[in-house]
């Protein structure tokens, strides 16, 4: 059960964290909890992906491991309705509207979050950490300011390079790009610094 102060009422915010390949929702909550630092007005929830991954049997995944971008995009789009329903159920349970909800995706969770946000109005903010932004055309919506996105990449990430992520986010109609923080020395991980940036952006 999320650690939330019932008295915080209408000021509450929700962070929905989507893990990467071989991770779990609990891992994401653990990382984000320290960064939340006593803010009991922030509800954090994190579903587990549906797959038991072959190459990381101790964790979960949203889809099998692959480098094929078309498959990643297709699988992410297929997952989006179920993840959106999960977000809506949690919003109803905690009476927190989409306007005060943020999706935080790490690695595979980024493509899933992208597809969810492209198809469903379930969040106002998003953090895409160490993941390719495939699975939906977000620029139409972010260009109009509908979703406030922060992209975080690692300067030492061997899986997801910052320049590939930049190419995923070609400038929108108004010429803007997503704000993008490249953390020096960060590998492919959701560490305390990424968690801090995520909470900061989600609760601005």
């Amino acid at each position, binding site marked *: 059960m999320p650690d939330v102060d019932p008295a915080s009422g209408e000021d509450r915010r929700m962070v929905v964290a989507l893990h990467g390949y071989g991770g779990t929702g609990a891992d994401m909550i653990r990382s984000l909890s320290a960064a939340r630092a006593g803010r009991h007005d922030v509800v954090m929830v994190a579903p587990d992906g549906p797959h038991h991954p*072959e*190459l*990381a049997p101790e964790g979960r995944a949203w*889809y*099998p491991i692959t480098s*094929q971008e078309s498959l990643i995009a297709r699988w992410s789009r297929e997952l989006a309705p179920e993840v959106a329903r999960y977000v809506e159920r949690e919003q109803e349970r905690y009476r927190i509207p989409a306007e005060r909800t943020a999706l935080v995706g790490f690695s595979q969770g980024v493509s899933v979050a992208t597809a969810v946000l492209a198809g469903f109005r379930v969040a106002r903010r998003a953090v895409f950490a160490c993941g390719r932004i495939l699975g939906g055309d977000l620029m139409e919506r972010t260009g109009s300011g509908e979703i406030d996105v922060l992209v975080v990449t690692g300067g030492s990430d061997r899986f997801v390079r910052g320049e590939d992520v930049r190419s995923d986010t070609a400038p929108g109609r108004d010429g803007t790009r997503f704000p993008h923080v490249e953390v020096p020395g960060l590998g*492919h991980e959701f560490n305390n610094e990424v968690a801090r940036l995520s909470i900061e952006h989600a609760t601005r």
Partner: protein
Amino acid sequence: MISEDRFLELSQQFLHERLGDKAAHVDADTELVESGLLDSLMVLEFFFFLENVSGTTVKPEEATVQSLATLRGAYRLVVAS
């Protein structure tokens, strides 16, 4: 298609670059995962490495810990893809 010898050579180089002396004695049949040489992140990195080095796209359902257990097994995986 890359030859098995060339694949083994490039794989050994890759593992040595990433793991240093721990990978100095890796041969075609060394257990990579069970021995603890490759942790979960390194298994993923090795998966993407072998796709790059072989120029093939591995079928997602065929990428298993068993198929990547040794360099010889990994080569069979890329040949079959």
